[in-house]
C-alpha cells in the first residue's frame, strides 16, 4: 500500500519553512541567545533582531513597525484583538459582530466575552462562504464596539471583500478587525488599502516557524493586554520574546513579500488542475468555497456518501497528507461550522476533504492524487450504506 511517495497537501494546517528562514534563526539559538530586555551586548543583538523583524513583518502588510505586536500564534493574535479591543471599549457598548465562519479563536473569544455581558451577532454567509457587506451594515447597533470578519477562510479558501466590509463599519465609527491568518503572506494584504483597524497574522501560514504570530494595531487604538507582566511589546504583550521564532517570522515575511507573485503563479495552476481533475474523476463531489475568489493553493471539496477521516487515513496510507472538516476529524466531534454555515447538510459535510498546496508541490503530486483518490473513494463507497441506498434509489 505504502508506495514510499510522500505528498504533503496540508499547507493550511502548517507550512514547512522556506529556504533561508531556518538559517536566519540559527544564530539566535547559539551565540546570540540574549534577552532583548538586557542592556548589554547580548541584549543589543537580540533587540536589533526584533526591530528588524518588526520592520519586515510590518512591511509585508503595509503597516508601521511600532504598530505591530508579536504574539505566540494566530490564535493569540485573535484573542488579543477580540478580547483586548472589546474590553478596551466596553464603556461605549458591549455588542460585537462577527461572521458565522470565523476561526474558533475568534468565535470562542466572543463566547468568553458573552459570559461578562457582551452580546454577539453572527453575520451569515452565502453558499460560497461570502459575507455580504450589507448584512454587516444591518447588524450594526448603537452599542456595537467591534466587528471582526476574516480575510480568507482556511477551510474553504474563500476571500472576503474586506475593503467593502471595512468601509461600512468605519462609516459607523466602529472598530474593525480582520483575521488574516490564512491570507497574509499568501496574497497581497495591505492594512491601509483594506481600511482596517487591526489585523492578525501568523508565520506558519507563510513558510515561517510555528509559535510566531502578530497583531497589527492602528496607532492610537486602545487594547487591553492578555498577558500582563513586563513591558515587552510596548506594554501590550508581556513575556520574554521568542527571539529566534520572531526572527524566523521576519525572514518569512521578507521572502513572502519578495516571492509572492512567483508563489501565487506556482500554486494557482496546481489548485486548478486538482479542482478540474477531481470534479471530473470523482462523481458526486463538489467544490466548497468560492469558485474564483479563493486562496491560491486551496482546493476544498465534499465527497458525497463517505466520511472525511476514513478518506484521510487511506490517503495517508498512500503517503498523501490532507485534512477534513468532518465531525470525525475534529477533536470535538462536530462537523465544520463553516460548511454548515454555507448551507451544507451534516451528511455532505462529513465528506469534507481539504487539499492545500505550496511551493514543494508539483504537477506530478496532483496527478498522483488524482490517480489514488478515485480508488479510495470507490472503496469507501463500497462500504457505505448511504451510497448503496442513493444509487439504488
Amino acid at each position, binding site marked *: 500500500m505504502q508506495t514510499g511517495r510522500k505528498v504533503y497537501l496540508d499547507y493550511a494546517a502548517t507550512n514547512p519553512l522556506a529556504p533561508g528562514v531556518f538559517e536566519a534563526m540559527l544564530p539566535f539559538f547559539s551565540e546570540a541567545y540574549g534577552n532583548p530586555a538586557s542592556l548589554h551586548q547580548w541584549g543589543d543583538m537580540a533587540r536589533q533582531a526584533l526591530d528588524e523583524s518588526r520592520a519586515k513583518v510590518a512591511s509585508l502588510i503595509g503597516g508601521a513597525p511600532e504598530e505591530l505586536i508579536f504574539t505566540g500564534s494566530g490564535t493569540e493574535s485573535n484573542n488579543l484583538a477580540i478580547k483586548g479591543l472589546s474590553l478596551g471599549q466596553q464603556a461605549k457598548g458591549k455588542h460585537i459582530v462577527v461572521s458565522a465562519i470565523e476561526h474558533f479563536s475568534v468565535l470562542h473569544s466572543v463566547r468568553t466575552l458573552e459570559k461578562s455581558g457582551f452580546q454577539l451577532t453572527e453575520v451569515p454567509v452565502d453558499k460560497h462562504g461570502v459575507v455580504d457587506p450589507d448584512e454587516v451594515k444591518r447588524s450594526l447597533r448603537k452599542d456595537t464596539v467591534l466587528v471582526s470578519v476574516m480575510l480568507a477562510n482556511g477551510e474553504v479558501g474563500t476571500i472576503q471583500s474586506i475593503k467593502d466590509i471595512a468601509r461600512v463599519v468605519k462609516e459607523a465609527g466602529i472598530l474593525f478587525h480582520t483575521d488574516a491568518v490564512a491570507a497574509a503572506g499568501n496574497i497581497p494584504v495591505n492594512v491601509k488599502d483594506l481600511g482596517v483597524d487591526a489585523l492578525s497574522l501568523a508565520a506558519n501560514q507563510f513558510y515561517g516557524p510555528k509559535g510566531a504570530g502578530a497583531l497589527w494595531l492602528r496607532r492610537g487604538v486602545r487594547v487591553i493586554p492578555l498577558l500582563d507582566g513586563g513591558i515587552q511589546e510596548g506594554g501590550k504583550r508581556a513575556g520574554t520574546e521568542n527571539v529566534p521564532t520572531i526572527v524566523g517570522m521576519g525572514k518569512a515575511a521578507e521572502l513572502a513579500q519578495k516571492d509572492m507573485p512567483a508563489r501565487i503563479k506556482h500554486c494557482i495552476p496546481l489548485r486548478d488542475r486538482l479542482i478540474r481533475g477531481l470534479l471530473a474523476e470523482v462523481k458526486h463531489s463538489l467544490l466548497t468555497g468560492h469558485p474564483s475568489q479563493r486562496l491560491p493553493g486551496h482546493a476544498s471539496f465534499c465527497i458525497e456518501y463517505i466520511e472525511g477521516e*476514513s478518506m484521510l487515513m487511506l490517503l495517508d496510507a498512500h503517503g498523501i497528507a490532507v485534512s477534513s472538516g468532518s465531525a*470525525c476529524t475534529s477533536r470535538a*466531534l462536530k462537523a465544520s461550522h463553516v460548511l454548515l454555515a454555507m448551507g451544507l447538510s451534516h451528511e455532505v459535510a*462529513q465528506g469534507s476533504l481539504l487539499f492545500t498546496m505550496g511551493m514543494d508541490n508539483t504537477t506530478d503530486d496532483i496527478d498522483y492524487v488524482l490517480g489514488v483518490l478515485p480508488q479510495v473513494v470507490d472503496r469507501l463507497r*463500497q462500504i457505505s450504506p*448511504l451510497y448503496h441506498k442513493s444509487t439504488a434509489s
Partner: protein
Amino acid sequence: MPVYGEKVMDHFMHPRNVGEIENPDGVGDVGNPVCGDMMSFYIKVKDNRLVDIKFKTFGCGAAIAVSSIVTEMAMGKTLEEAMTITNKLVAQELGGLPQNKLHCSNLGADALHNAIKNYLEKTGQKPVGEKVT
C-alpha cells in the same frame, strides 16, 4: 503517534465481511450523520446461530474497524452469546480506541444487537438478554 493502534488499522485497512446479505434474516442500523457515523448490519441465522454477518458503514476509521471486528467476534455465536458482546468488549478486542471515539464510533455491538432484535421480532420470538454497555 498514530491516532489508532495496529489492530484498529488492520481492521480499517482490511475490513472483514463488508457488504449486504440478500434476504437477510435481520437488519440493524445505528447512528446518524450529525454524530458522524452510521452502521448497517445484516445477519443470517441458522439454528439460533449467526451463520453470516455483513456490514456497511459510513464513518470514521474507528467506526469501520469496529464494524469489522464485531462481525468476527459474533460469527458462529448463538444469539444469546452475541447479545453479550458489548461496545466495551469491542474496544478491548481492538486494543483500545481513542477516548473521543468511544461514544460515537463504537456502536458496532448496538448495530448487531439491533439486527438480532429485528430477527427476533420478525420471527415473533421474545428478546434475549442484552448486557448493559
